[in-house]
């Protein structure tokens, strides 16, 4: 299970865009991540699956700078980095759609999309640029929100999720992490997100997709990583696995046999 996993646009790159090694994270008595190595290459989509509380969100939040790991190292293109805050990860073009969406309810749609990188007109926010940009972002994802001045609190669950996705995808990420991005979406909207993943992959973006909708993984992922109780227990190329195999890996019946790559 190494080297030759990539088949995306920039397949030849020998150095992973992001490499985690020996990552550990503890919350009080819970050891959420118990030593995980993970390599992510340009232009590939890696599916991250596992039981509830397996540590998927925690691991990806470490990549996005939300949590600082207790142990272990992160390197980008071979260079070791340390993310003290999410702002540091953002500087390296790592964007994440959080499971809880992380929206500000009392700010309007455009304001949420541009939060933290508002276009400016001198010292003032350029509201017109924000609104026009927001409309373009949402159109690209075929998201229907009639009134961009609406506060995010007034939107439907799926609309809110779409905004979180649009925000992460819009600013040229190199690594796009999506933590259950489709949990609240209807049929057509899920398709739009999977299309989006395939589009950005083709541009060389590294995508990490966490989802419990296993069938979606087969539409977009190149590899699948399975976590169990804070450990990475298996890694499969998409061609080498199927639904039943994945299910048994997730519930913990298959990993004793080791990978068959």
């Amino acid at each position: 299970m190494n080297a030759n996993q990539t088949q995306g646009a920039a397949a030849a790159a020998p150095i992973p865009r992001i490499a985690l090694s020996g990552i550990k994270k503890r919350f009080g008595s819970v050891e959420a991540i118990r030593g995980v190595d993970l390599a992510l290459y340009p232009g590939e989509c890696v599916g991250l699956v596992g039981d509830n509380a397996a540590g998927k969100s925690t691991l990806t939040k470490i990549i996005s700078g939300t949590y600082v790991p207790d142990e272990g190292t992160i390197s980008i293109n071979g260079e070791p980095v340390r993310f003290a805050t999410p702002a540091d990860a953002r500087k390296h073009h790592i964007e994440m759609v959080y499971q809880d969406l992380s929206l500000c309810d009392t700010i309007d749609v455009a304001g949420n999309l541009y939060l933290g990188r508002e276009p400016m007109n001198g010292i003032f926010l350029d509201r017109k640029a924000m609104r026009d940009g927001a409309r373009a972002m949402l159109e690209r994802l075929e998201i229907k929100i009639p009134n961009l001045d609406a506060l995010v609190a007034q939107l439907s669950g799926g609309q809110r999720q779409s905004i979180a996705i649009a925000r992460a995808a819009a600013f040229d990420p190199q690594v796009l992490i999506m933590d259950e991005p489709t949990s609240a979406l209807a049929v057509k909207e899920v398709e739009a997100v999977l299309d989006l993943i395939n589009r950005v992959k083709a541009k060389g973006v590294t995508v990490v997709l966490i989802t419990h909708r296993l069938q979606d993984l087969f539409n977009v992922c190149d590899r699948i990583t399975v976590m169990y109780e804070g450990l990475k227990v298996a890694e499969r190329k998409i061609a080498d696995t199927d639904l039943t195999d994945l299910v048994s890996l997730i519930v913990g019946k298959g990993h004793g046999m080791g990978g068959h790559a």
Partner: protein
Amino acid sequence: MTSAYTSRPQGSRLADLLAAHAQLLSIAGFFLIMVVIFSIASPVFLSTGNILNLVRQIAPILIVAVAMTFVITTGGIDLSVGSVVALINASAAIVLQMGLPWPIAVIGLLLLGAAIGAIQGWFIAYQGIQAFIVTLAGLSALRGIALLMTEGFSIPISTDLGFVAIGREWLLGVPVPTWIAFLIVAAGFLTFWGTRFGRYVTAIGANQEAARRSGISTKQILLWVYVLTGLASALAGIIIAARLGSGSSNAAVGFELEVIAAVVLGGTSLMGGRGSIAGTVLGALTIGVIGNGLILSHVSPFFTQIVTGSIILLAVWLNARVFSRLASGARRKT
């Protein structure tokens, strides 16, 4: 059987606008009602002299309330503002008596106020201690320092100094404190509505972790809002000292409550995430009008506090229960 797939018709924008500004409209309505009542109760209430007197009197509340709007919108609170006013007020009299040139004294006192705010802000933002606790400690300790410095006496400020002009002089027919308050309100409004800082203050109040994940330096912003209240309180302390021509540790007792009441009356949410400088201005004006109107209507001063408290509760209740329901009702009908 299916019916035609049509887009939902878009309702009127006016209804949305009304709903979004329901709070502001309700405090504006309440303010006008107060003005009407007191102008009937007292013939001098609407005289130019009284109006100018009123806007001079509320200048300190207005200045601090603008800064407090930022603090409360982050979901915090600053209970120490009255004590900072007292400390600066007493310090002003002391340093001027020592012969320090007044412009230097003013700059030094403003910096002192900012520094006090920064210390409190550091405990709140970087040490994660609740704003209520930190500023409650500040409320007690800072007035204590003022008492210690003055030993409880009122210290006179020489009227020969240019210093008193800050509180007493007039410019183009309007008192200087009113001009200062006007500038602070304008700056506060533009900052709150138009700048990144104002936007991030709202974002932090709405969802601090989301703001942090968006790359915003939430701790820095939190520290700054307390620097703003410290600075505004220092300015208020200077204006009060200049107007009264003395400094005392007993200045501005209960000031923090009036300021917070003005902000909350104006529709800023104590839960954070939602604030309005225009509302705060109306809130401060309303509180000023109530205080002034009751005196002019010859209500016993012993009643003033009771009436003020009741009116504030009534206003907030109307705001929360009646006006906002009217606004959402108006929305449903369209």
